[in-house]
């Protein structure tokens, strides 16, 4: 296929931006476009997280779609939102339609009295992780105050596919070294699937805009995934004393070792191992053991990973440590992994998975992998987006020592049985 995309795993950049705004406290994402984009995205994430999702749309209809610069309709939309809820922030998200007709969200946002952050995400460019990254960059550029001195704060920039629990675990790890951890965006308290006090009409948990504005005082920024690299640079530019720790991923023993090394170096306890909590050491030993236990099964396994690039690279690194042969097919590759990847890597859709000549045993990807695996008589492990058929995805981890250990067991069991 040259022109046609068949069975895409790619999701749109506005969806990624919307997901990022769901990780900001008391936020209402507002998609500037016709009503379908917000509706599809809402349904998609509701089914994925099994929880209600707040989002609104400017609902362009034929006349307003062609005429006008969009400022009136955005103002009208915000007025109607404020009639019902009082968000701390409105996340203004553009779409292909409003970009094509040339609406200038920057000046529209500047004229608003409601606190807002705008992000440009024409859906004919990029995908979920780039839209997420663009929204994070917008939050940094438009909200973070420049600063000259640093505190014990560490800013964490997770990529779009990190689950709420993965974000929470990383925050806890950083905190166990004596730092204060702030994640941007932070899905760990908003999309972690908790029963709140009442029905949410906007995001309840997440990072507050107050906390975002003070991120400039972080002594370091830890960015996970190449899609978050430019966000890390933008944040570091707010404070010359801020250290940048940019990691492709934190999946598996080697990558987690690197992160721990960085955190040790950052902590005042220099390189002495006193800085490392006992439970972290314990989990490292468990991961070592699990690598050895699972290598009989995984060493002969051939696994296809059809996930967002940042996540695919993380899972591939982990599974490769136990000898699995991975093939990565990702919806986009803004980070340029294709050139550096040790495993076969290409940008493509699930049609490309069907065309793989070499035999394989298991595909790890979202719900759409199920029908494909069934048709081809292979196994499927549901991960990434979407997870419509599987419960509890937001509570699972495949990174750091403990998440890696558990995930190796999950994959080995799946292949063996």
């Amino acid at each position: 296929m040259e022109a046609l995309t068949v069975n895409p795993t790619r999701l749109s950049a506005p969806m990624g931006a919307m997901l990022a705004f769901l990780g900001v406290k008391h936020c209402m994402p507002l998609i500037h476009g016709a009503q379908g984009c917000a509706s599809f995205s809402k349904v998609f994430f509701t089914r994925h997280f099994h929880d209600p999702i707040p989002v609104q749309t400017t609902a362009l209809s034929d006349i307003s779609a062609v005429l006008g610069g969009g400022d009136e309709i955005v103002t009208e939309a915000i007025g109607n939102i404020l009639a019902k809820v009082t968000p701390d922030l409105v996340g203004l998200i553009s779409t292909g339609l409003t970009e094509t007709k040339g609406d200038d969200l920057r000046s529209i946002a500047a004229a608003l009295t409601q606190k807002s952050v705008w992000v440009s995400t024409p859906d004919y460019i990029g995908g979920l992780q780039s839209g997420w990254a663009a929204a994070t960059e917008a939050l940094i550029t438009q909200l973070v105050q420049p600063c000259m001195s640093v505190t014990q704060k560490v800013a964490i920039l997770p990529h779009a596919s990190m689950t709420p629990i993965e974000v929470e675990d990383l925050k806890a790890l950083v905190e166990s070294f004596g730092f204060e951890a702030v994640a941007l965006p932070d899905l760990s308290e908003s999309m972690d699937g908790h029963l709140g006090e009442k029905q949410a009409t906007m995001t309840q948990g997440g990072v507050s805009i107050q906390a975002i504005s003070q991120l400039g005082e972080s002594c370091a920024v830890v960015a996970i995934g190449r899609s978050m690299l430019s966000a890390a640079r933008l944040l570091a530019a707010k404070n010359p004393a801020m250290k940048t720790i940019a990691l492709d991923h934190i999946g598996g023993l080697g990558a987690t070792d690197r992160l721990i090394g960085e955190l040790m170096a950052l902590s005042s306890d220099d390189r002495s191992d006193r800085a490392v909590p006992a439970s972290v050491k314990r989990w490292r030993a468990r991961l070592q053991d699990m690598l050895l236990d699972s290598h009989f099964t995984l060493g002969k396994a051939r696994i296809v990973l059809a996930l967002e690039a940042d996540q695919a690279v993380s899972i591939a690194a982990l599974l490769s440590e136990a000898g699995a042969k991975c093939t990565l097919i990702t919806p986009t590759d803004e980070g340029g992994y294709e050139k550096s990847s040790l495993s076969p890597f290409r940008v493509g859709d699930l049609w490309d998975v069907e065309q793989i000549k070499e035999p394989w045993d298991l595909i790890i990807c979202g719900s759409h992998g199920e029908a494909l695996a069934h048709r081809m008589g292979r196994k499927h492990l549901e991960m990434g987006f979407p997870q419509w058929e599987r419960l509890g995805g937001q509570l699972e981890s495949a990174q750091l020592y403990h998440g890696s250990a558990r995930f190796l067991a999950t994959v080995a069991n799946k292949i063996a049985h």
Partner: protein
Amino acid sequence: MLTAPKELLNESACDHHTNKKTACNRPTPGATTGGCAFEGAQISLFPYAEAAHIVHGPITCLGASWETRATPTSFSGRDLTQVGLTTAISENDVIFGGEKRLSASIDEAMHTFNPKAIFIYSTCVTALIGDDIDAICREKAQQYGLPIVPVHAPGFIGSKNFGSRLAGEAVLEHLIGTLEPESTAPYEINLIGEYNVTGDMWRYLPVLEKIGIKVRATLSGDGRIDAIRTAHRAGLNVIVCAQSLVTLTRKMQERYGIPWVSVSFYGQRDTSEAIRTIVRAFGDAALIDRAEAVITEEEAKLSKQLEPIRTRLAGKKAVLNTGGNKAWSFASALQDIGLKVVATAVGKSTEADRAKAREYLGEEGVLMTKPAVEQPKVIADTQADILLAGGRSLYTALKKKIAFVDVNQEKKVSYGGYDGLVAFGEDVIAALDNPVFKVANREAPWRH
């Protein structure tokens, strides 16, 4: 097409039009839920499993929406309903036009899937940049000698309902009447707006067949392209819970003299009523007699199956909060399984729907116009046992410590026809019996 055709907007069969000012007009920015016209078109046409459905637009429109609808088919080839095809246009296409990519995409779909027809869906961006989809479809249809149907329902043109109406237009203009059937039977119907979600229509088709009614074509549940092309030879159009397709059936009446009726196969009362409506439209005394015999037989059979369910649900009271015509059609199904429906929501219903809801619930039934606000009080006042509503109302049920059924939850089994009621009843009982609604809301130990 940047503006909606006037004629379609002014369609008199649109119930909303005379009663509510906004329903068919511009959606409210910042206070809109519900899908776009493209989604409506997709819902209406995707069930044709032997046709390729190419979405011409950026990744948004298809990326989040393919493989989302369970509309099973008996088609033995690869089910193209579940294959996501899109041109996923790039920035370059936006600048230089997406026509080249679209034509190449049609070629690739042709060679790879060998479909019976191809539907091309325009979407917001491709409509705005003015790609000439009609010309490409015409040219490719000639080249391949099969129907290639342009569907002009870009999202900004209107709501889901309007899109489904536009899909009906496309089928009327490009498919219906383009093929003559080899043979016809006396009592043939077209099922319009039945998408066979979770196999709904397979529940009631055997009953229709027993009476001697055959389905010539569907739009579009378990549908076949060749069949819909011969739809102009059917004796009756049967609209199944889809007011948006009235335009289509009205035009078919004008063009081909086919009368139409509108029915629902939800619950015993509606199913029997639907059968009677259909046979009466044919007006044949023998057919009507046969139908009555079959209805009596089916109702007796169902009544036996429902007996334990009705016994179990006797005296239980339900509050229903769902929109539109479901306000009464759902209520009717609940009554069939033995529940007393003490309240239903009519906030978004038309006048006709409200009247029907009143008829079904009786004088003391509560018609809630602001269900979100009224619900808790109504539950308390009526001492209801179960709330059937969208997910948003879960908290109300938890607070009131009563059972909850999410009516928007994708159902895995069909509730359609006569025996669908048994499945429905079992689900309602499962909810009533489940301790989870009390357990999940236990007071935390540190709150005592």
